[in-house]
């Protein structure tokens, strides 16, 4: 590129010379503007040349090669020692874990027509455990939630889903927490792990579902492993983040007191980062539950198949009922884990009286639970949930009428919104990136990377651009890029508004949070049908779905960041005469910059993980390629390449935003 780019200073040393900093601040927007102008001029001249388009059914050599490779694995499966002694063993262990839990709570076990523990026992255990690790409030919630599954007429389905989720979360945490601690302690490990985590979170599950069933067969193991791959990264990332964020002075204090590395880890770092680690565990549980419907594509039992099957006949009500069960399960699990973390702190402050009572009460509770388990093991009324789920059919028909009402009365407005955003924002932007020659867009991206993030992120961008061209799906990638950026901008806008609001008021937080949890775990498939009715099969529908999924995580992280700003700082600002707006913009947002970065980062990754769902509702491009690859053998290679392209887009934007934030913060 011809644009002169000021060489960024890599010095992170404190207090660079003030005039230099000021000069850079002024010049950066100008450089960005210059890049944009040059781009537009060249676009006008070169429009439509070297755009690297590839028709929906066309393949490149790379795609064919992947197909052949995949076929050869399939053909040699039964003779390959790697399968016989490695994958089969893993499959056995995980399958046994899943079947064990299923026989316990969801599936007929042995000669019994019902599981070992019936509904009464499970509800009892849920209540008791929630009370023991949390408090009586979450115990009530757990009991109510689990009873609700039965009333919905979805007891067995819910228990199947619970079994799979518990197995997956268990396996995920087994790896994720130690890895997260490592990544928190060692910069090098963190650097190595990060691309893998990006890969696991952004590589669409559709791409590896079919190979997983080849490696681990159709069944519990494949479903669990697919879930683990997607659900483990949040815990690893957030654990690392938590360990890193323990204040340096505290660690230094421990060091100066002569604590060993091990001691400072166990006594200082882990306890101090507990609250945030639990947030990671929450995210893992949420992510695992978000996989319920996708795992159903490879015959995972439970609520997922109910959602998928009812969508074949566009039965929104039934799908919503099952989706609601997933949401309730998520909220119960989330609140219980959060209460478990908070309990430690409360216990310390609580009056001594209660502690004295706690042990006998725990014993009594255990006895009651044991009786309930025994009853549900022995008697039919306590084993099979009574009634025929009339509450469920009421919920279904209410959801149906709500959807119909929305479709009938809103579709004029929604079409107008769609057309404004599509024609005013999305189409021009998409035309610009898809109709420019590939090298021009590539150069612009690299230049942006350098200006915003420094030379290093420029190099990363260049590598990503090169690999994107290599996937053979450049044009599709650019179409997806356009939609993704539009969606991410909207996600961050919502994230900041709601995050700040929630961070400043505990009550707002408490009111909004259940909705956010619901949006995060309600399977997108449930709201796709109403969205389709409102917006038609378009790219905009995909963007809306991505916002519903991506915005909650951004809001939560930002709220957490705002809350972490020390009270004293805010008070100081207030007493200095700052008004609310000034406190937010000058104190709270700048001080939670690292939370904002994390939110952008996660928001983007969540949006990218919806690209495939977007492909199901008319977004086309990479999402469609992935879905097509999952559906048709000849397109498998192309689907995998599209998956890689999604990962590359994710890595590219992730590195640029992070580097930009670091520079802004330095």
């Amino acid at each position, binding site marked *: 590129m011809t644009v002169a780019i000021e060489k960024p200073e890599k010095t992170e040393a404190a207090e660079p010379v003030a005039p230099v900093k000021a000069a850079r601040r002024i010049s950066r927007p100008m450089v960005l503007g210059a890049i944009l102008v040059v781009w537009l001029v060249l676009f006008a001249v070169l429009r439509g040349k070297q755009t690297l388009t590839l028709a929906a059914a066309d393949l490149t050599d790379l795609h064919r090669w992947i197909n052949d490779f995949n*076929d050869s694995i399939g053909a040699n499966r039964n003779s390959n020692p790697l399968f016989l002694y490695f994958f089969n063993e893993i499959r056995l262990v995980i399958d046994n874990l899943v079947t064990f839990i299923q026989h316990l709570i969801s599936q007929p076990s042995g000669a019994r027509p019902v599981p070992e523990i019936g509904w009464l026992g499970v509800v009892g255990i849920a209540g008791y455990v929630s009370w023991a690790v949390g408090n009586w409030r979450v115990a009530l919630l757990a009991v109510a939630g689990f009873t609700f599954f039965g009333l919905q007429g979805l007891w067995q389905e819910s228990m199947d889903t619970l079994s799979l989720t518990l197995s997956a979360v268990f396996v995920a945490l087994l790896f994720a927490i130690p890895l997260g601690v490592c990544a928190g302690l060692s910069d090098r490990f963190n650097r190595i792990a990060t691309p893998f985590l990006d890969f696991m979170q952004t590589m669409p599950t559709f791409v590896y579902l079919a190979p997983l069933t080849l490696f681990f067969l159709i069944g519990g193991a494949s479903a669990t492993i697919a879930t683990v791959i997607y659900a483990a990264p949040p815990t690893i990332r957030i654990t690392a983040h938590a360990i890193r964020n323990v204040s340096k002075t505290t660690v230094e204090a421990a060091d100066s007191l002569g604590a060993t590395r091990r001691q400072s880890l166990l006594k200082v770092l882990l306890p101090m980062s507990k609250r945030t680690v639990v947030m990671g565990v929450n995210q893992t549980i949420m992510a695992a539950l978000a996989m319920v419907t996708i795992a159903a594509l490879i015959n995972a039992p439970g609520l997922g198949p109910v959602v998928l099957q009812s969508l074949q006949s566009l039965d929104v009500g039934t799908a919503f009922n099952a989706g609601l069960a997933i949401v309730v399960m998520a909220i119960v699990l989330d609140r219980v884990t959060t209460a478990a973390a908070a309990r430690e702190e409360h216990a310390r402050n609580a009056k001594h009286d209660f502690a004295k009572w706690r042990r006998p009460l725990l*014993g009594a509770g255990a006895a009651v639970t044991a009786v309930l388990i025994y009853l549900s093991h022995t008697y039919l009324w306590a084993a099979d949930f009574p009634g025929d789920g009339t509450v469920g059919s009421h919920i279904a028909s209410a959801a149906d009428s709500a959807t119909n009402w929305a479709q009938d009365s809103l579709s004029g407005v929604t079409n107008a919104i769609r057309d404004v955003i599509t024609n005013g924002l999305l189409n021009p932007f998409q035309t610009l990136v898809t109709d420019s020659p590939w090298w021009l867009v590539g150069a612009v991206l690299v230049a942006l990377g350098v200006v915003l993030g420094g030379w290093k992120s420029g190099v990363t961008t260049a590598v990503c651009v090169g690999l994107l061209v290599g996937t053979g799906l450049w044009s599709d990638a650019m179409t997806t890029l356009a939609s993704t950026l539009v969606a991410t901008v909207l996600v961050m806008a919502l994230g900041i508004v709601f995050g700040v609001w929630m961070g400043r008021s505990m009550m707002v937080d408490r009111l909004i949070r259940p909705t956010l949890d619901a949006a995060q775990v309600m399977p997108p498939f449930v709201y796709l049908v109403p969205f389709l009715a409102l917006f038609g099969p378009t790219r905009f529908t995909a963007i809306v779905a991505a916002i519903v999924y991506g915005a909650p995580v951004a809001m939560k992280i930002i709220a957490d960041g705002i809350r972490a700003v020390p009270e004293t700082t805010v008070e100081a600002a207030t007493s200095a005469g700052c008004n609310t707006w000034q406190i937010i913009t000058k104190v709270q947002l700048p001080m939670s910059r690292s939370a904002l970065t994390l939110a952008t980062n996660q928001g983007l990754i969540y949006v990218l993980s919806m690209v495939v769902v977007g492909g199901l509702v*008319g977004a*086309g491009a990479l999402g469609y390629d992935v879905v097509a690859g999952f559906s048709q*053998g000849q397109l498998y290679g192309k689907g995998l390449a599209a998956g890689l392209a999604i990962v590359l887009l994710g890595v590219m934007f992730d590195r640029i935003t992070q580097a930009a934030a670091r520079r802004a913060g330095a």
Partner: protein
Amino acid sequence: MARHWRAGAAGLAVLGLTLTACGGAKVGDSSSAGSGSSGKCGTFNLAVNPWVGYEADAAVVAYVAQHNLGCTVTKKNLKEEIAWQGFGTGEVDAVLENWGHADLVKKYITQQKTAVDAGPTGNKGIIGWYVPPWLAKAHPDILDYKNLNKYASKFKTSESGGKGQLLDGDPSYVTNDEALVKNLKLDFKVVYAGSETALIQAFRTAEKNKQWVIGYFYEPQWFMSEVPLKKVSLPAYKTGCDAEAAKVACDYPVYNLNKIVSAKFAKSGSPAYNLVKNFNWTNDDQNEVAKYIAQDKMTDDAAAKKWVEANKDKVDAWIK
């Protein structure tokens, strides 16, 4: 304190005993009734591909296998590709409604020899371009592809880049639409809705709000009984006119849908295999069961029961 504990435990024990005493039916009591007739059939792994017509096939076959033959039927919800893959690993015994899929036939029947053809289902699969009924009524000439260009501008949407929009659905379905648009010189752009759900919803909205939509669709399909879409005629199909994918300029052939079973299952001598082999019914039969499931919202089992009881003669022919 210990006294409290003991009192509590005693109270619980009493409570437990009382509950036990008035407990009611025990779990083991009724379990002997169901499992009497099974034996020679064993487990029958039936793949269920994700569309309602198939679900109807699977519902009826599973019902008959379970009630008339005493099989333990395990239904597995899988996409075609994965279901076929399951033939080799022994996890899938039968696929009941196969739409051509030349690539899978080549890979699993010809090359890996893990699957075999088990004959036609009797259903005729029709693929083509359809418009909502109101449109066919208001502009009858639209049903001929030659007039499509005349109306192209009416089919414009935010996705179709200035041309008319031709909506395609689930990528697993056989489609030549891009080639057709090009070779028939139509001023249309193929837009991929990406799923059957999206396609059906688009047609439903179009019929209700009198919108202009033309798209790929197929029969037998339950949605036809809700909104009877009208097929647009393309140049007639002649054998071999679709030999080269890029040069296709003719309508889709009529597919004789067939059943595929795993090679192992075909040799097993299981009565379930005979059932699958003999299973044969008409598009109307399938549509009827599909309607029970999709529109009357009956469970698979209830829908199958209703149909089987009304069609004893057909079922008897399958299991004789």
